[in-house]
């Protein structure tokens, strides 16, 4: 049986893992290669590495991290942050990444999703959607949450699938960093209406939150950062809780 995935996320800035609240107030959270190896050992099903500087001059530092992580772990990982063209994807994949996630560039240039999916296969293309609850409506936000677009999250989620996305990473900007639980309503709405797997992100604080997002949110995978970096909960603790509640995990 296909299992639900737990995915630690490493936000990487200048070669270090950092973590903030609502996409700001960054704190250092350790060496990404050491963290990746630790999570792999502890039973993480996959990893996500996001380059949160993503400026041209810092790119080589990130590529080195990707290569070092690929050498250190034998689980799949996705990389993202500032990816805007096929050439960058090719470089990241050649360093050992399995999938890439695109966000802001796909909003600016939705055709990018199709081009990447044609060139590298849809299984390789994750579209990251940051959603924020504004006056009762889940709108897509961009540029690390600082710009509110007019797109409705559900509409954009359907569109990216039509364009060739193989997976959606849905982050609730509203819940991110709160540790009060995932945003279940929007996660479920997206998961029920797209043909591809959905990774829920933002708000994880307790093992019960993961159960909720898999059962009520119907997510295929759940991503978290801070609670793992600061050892608030362990991956195995979450998995044994899920097993107790009859959720298939590895």
């Amino acid at each position: 049986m296909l299992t639900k995935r737990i995915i630690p996320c490493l936000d990487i800035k200048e070669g270090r893992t950092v973590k903030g609240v609502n996409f700001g107030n960054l704190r250092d959270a350790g060496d990404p290669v050491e963290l990746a190896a630790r999570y792999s050992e502890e039973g993480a099903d996959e990893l996500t590495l996001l380059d949160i500087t993503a400026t041209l001059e810092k790119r080589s530092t990130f590529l080195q991290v990707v290569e070092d992580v690929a050498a250190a772990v034998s689980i799949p990982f996705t990389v993202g942050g500032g990816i805007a063209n096929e050439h960058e994807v090719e470089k990241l994949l050649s360093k050992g990444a399995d999938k890439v996630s695109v966000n802001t560039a796909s909003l600016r240039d939705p055709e990018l999703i199709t081009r990447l999916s044609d060139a590298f296969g849809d299984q390789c293309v994750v579209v990251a959607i940051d959603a924020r609850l504004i006056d009762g409506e889940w709108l897509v936000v961009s540029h690390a949450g600082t710009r509110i677009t007019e797109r409705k999250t559900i509409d954009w989620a359907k569109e990216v699938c039509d364009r060739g996305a193989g997976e959606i990473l849905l982050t609730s900007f509203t819940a991110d960093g709160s540790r009060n639980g995932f945003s279940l309503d929007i996660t479920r709405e997206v998961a029920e209406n797209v043909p591809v797997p959905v990774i829920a992100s933002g708000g994880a604080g307790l093992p019960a939150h993961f159960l909720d997002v898999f059962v009520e949110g119907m997510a295929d995978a759940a991503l978290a950062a801070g609670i793992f970096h600061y050892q608030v909960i362990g991956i195995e603790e979450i998995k044994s809780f899920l097993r107790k509640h009859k959720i298939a995990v590895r």
Partner: protein
Amino acid sequence: MKQQIKIIDYKAGNIASVRHAFRRLGLEAGLAAFPEDLEDADKLIFPGVGHARAAMNILKEKDMDQAIKAFKGPVLGICLGMQLMADSSEEGDMQGMGLFPDKIKRFSGDFKVPHMGWNSLYGLEGPLFANVPEASHVYFVHSYYMPKSSRAIALCQYGEAFTAACSKDQFFGVQFHPEKSGKPGMQILQNFIDL
């Protein structure tokens, strides 16, 4: 003398991950981009990600498809690599190498496609799965699959039972990614070294 394992390098494979995995097992795998690169190889890894027909066309440009077919040692096709070794694929109406007499189909049904994540194996057979326990979880990422066949040496369930691994003569194929499948994956690669 230490054996030489080479990875088919045709710009459509997850080569770095496969090389890293062999390095963790203490073996430096070489690369093979042209048919003559196969001459001093004992075994081949045939990786693959991306689109079936696009990948097949790249292979054909350099006659690598013929070179792989003619190879006398063990060959392990991974993911798309395995699918290219089959007769044909629905993906882009691809004509494959015909090493496995199977047709690759696209998943369709009331479930998510791609089949992405960790799923369990059963019906494990043969030396490739030595010391790999039944129900081991391995990592899959694919939208196309080989239906259950008589050449299957491992099965997996997603919508229906499908071929997770197959073999015919010296040719092996795995639909999942052993290089990304933690402990059981490393055991499978070790078994390939030990063949």
